[in-house]
């Protein structure tokens, strides 16, 4: 068993997947807690579809670095979606669904017209061998940046997540911190899309947060547990995906799903005993 794992990671692409995946899982799980509590989980889903759309168009146009092109597009979409959710006039969830399906449709057309059918599959569902060396460097730099910003603004993110009105009224620029959360989410999604696939990347944001909220009752422990759950699920998913040659993104989601079921049972048991 141990030997199998050692052998597994003697492959370069597995090392790359490991580094990139752990970092993306960390970022996604930290941001996820705030997004889920603010009832913004669907924004993550919407953004990943926009990410797919822009990736597909960028590669159809023959860009050498489609990921780098997708970033500004997804960031703009993130600010836009945030606006929509804050505006009570437009039904936020409907608007997100409209934008995300439109982006998906445009992306699929762009990809099939330009004959990128093999890439489409990896963009949609991710691939363990998708990360090349520049991707890993790019992904690591961005992830470290996201983690630093998150820790630096941790207390502000807590305040804005718990009670935006209070934060605003007492002089915290809630709008700015909402933007920061949206910006970091957009970056995380683009960075993680190649491995997880745009269909499944938002699960990295939602699952660990929901799991940790089942079992923890302090914000700090929720955040830490979420990060731990996310990384562990990623590792198990990655190893399982290699061993059974199953799709990586899907394997990770299934692991998360099982952990959620277990956490729900534990959560119920603990509540009963109280």
């Amino acid at each position, binding site marked *: 068993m141990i030997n199998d794992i050692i052998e597994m990671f003697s492959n370069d692409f597995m090392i790359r997947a490991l580094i990139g995946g752990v970092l993306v899982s960390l970022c996604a799980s930290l941001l996820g807690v705030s997004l889920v*509590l603010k009832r913004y989980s669907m924004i993550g889903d919407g953004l990943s579809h926009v990410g797919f759309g822009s990736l597909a168009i960028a590669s159809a146009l023959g860009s050498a670095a489609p990921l780098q092109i997708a970033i500004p597009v997804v960031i703009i979409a993130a600010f836009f979606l945030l606006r929509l959710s804050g505006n009570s006039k437009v039904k936020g969830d409907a608007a997100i669904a409209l934008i995300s399906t439109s982006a998906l449709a445009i992306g699929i057309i762009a990809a099939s017209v330009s004959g990128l059918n093999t890439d489409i599959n990896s963009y949609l569902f991710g691939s363990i061998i998708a990360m090349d060396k520049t991707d890993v460097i790019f992904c690591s730099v961005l992830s470290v940046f996201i983690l630093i910003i998150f820790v630096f*603004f941790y*207390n502000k993110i*807590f305040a804005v997540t*718990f009670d935006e*009105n*209070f934060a605003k009224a007492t002089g915290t620029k809630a709008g700015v911190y909402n933007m920061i959360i949206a910006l970091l989410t957009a970056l995380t999604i683009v960075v993680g899309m190649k491995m997880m696939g745009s269909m499944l990347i938002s699960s990295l944001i939602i699952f660990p947060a929901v799991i940790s*909220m089942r079992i923890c*009752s*302090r914000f700090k422990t929720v955040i830490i547990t979420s990060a731990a759950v996310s990384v562990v699920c990623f590792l198990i998913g990655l190893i399982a995906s290699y061993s059974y040659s199953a799709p990586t993104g899907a394997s990770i989601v299934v692991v998360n799903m099982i952990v959620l079921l277990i956490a729900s049972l534990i959560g119920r048991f603990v509540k009963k005993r109280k």
Partner: protein
Amino acid sequence: MGELIKCTDLAFSYEDVDVIKDLSFTVNDGDYLCIVGENGSGKSTLTKGLLGLKSPDKGKIIFSDELKKKEIGYLPQQTPAQKDFPASVFEVVLSGRLNSRGLRPFYSKKDKMIAHDNIRKLGIEELMKRSYRDLSGGQQQRVLLARALCAGKKLIFLDEPVTGLDPIVTEEMYRLIDDLNKKDKITVVMVSHDIQSAAKYATHILHLNFEKSFFGTTEDYIKSPLGQYFFGDNKVYSEV
């Protein structure tokens, strides 16, 4: 007795619909002002205006120098999302100190001490390690009040602080607020539906009414036409 807030000829509207017009009042140091009025009379709108979340169409809100934004505490109406928020009581109370941090990312020893002091003041020490979402409505309100005190020790805004509380806990909450006003000399501005209790505790009343608002001391209010409607013997509204 300095003037803390002075509002002159305020007007608020939402897209052409006027909610408040020609409103003038002042809040002095040590006052206990209750803002009352029926549903839709603009209490929440005025609160947003005072907190700087909505700018008035007309008129001015002047804050005294000593009452910069950093000296104001706020107890908002609770949102449903908050009720099951996974955070400890201490984390929630401490977050009231955020506005004094500026760009510095972490809380200092002093911030934690102030949070502890306010927790003690409101008698919720035994709840400190508990999770906010497991508390009763009244306990949650106390926690939010402690957070408000962490944010400002000069003036606190309370938006319907007793909604959904049972009569005993409501009375306790009113006593607590009264103590803060009398003992700790904190100026209180409270939005309330409960005119009877408002008259019992407040020094000043602002009764919002689109046609003619009332602002003055509680004694004058009880004698005014609007007050007579609630406190007069015959309880009939009449133009006196």
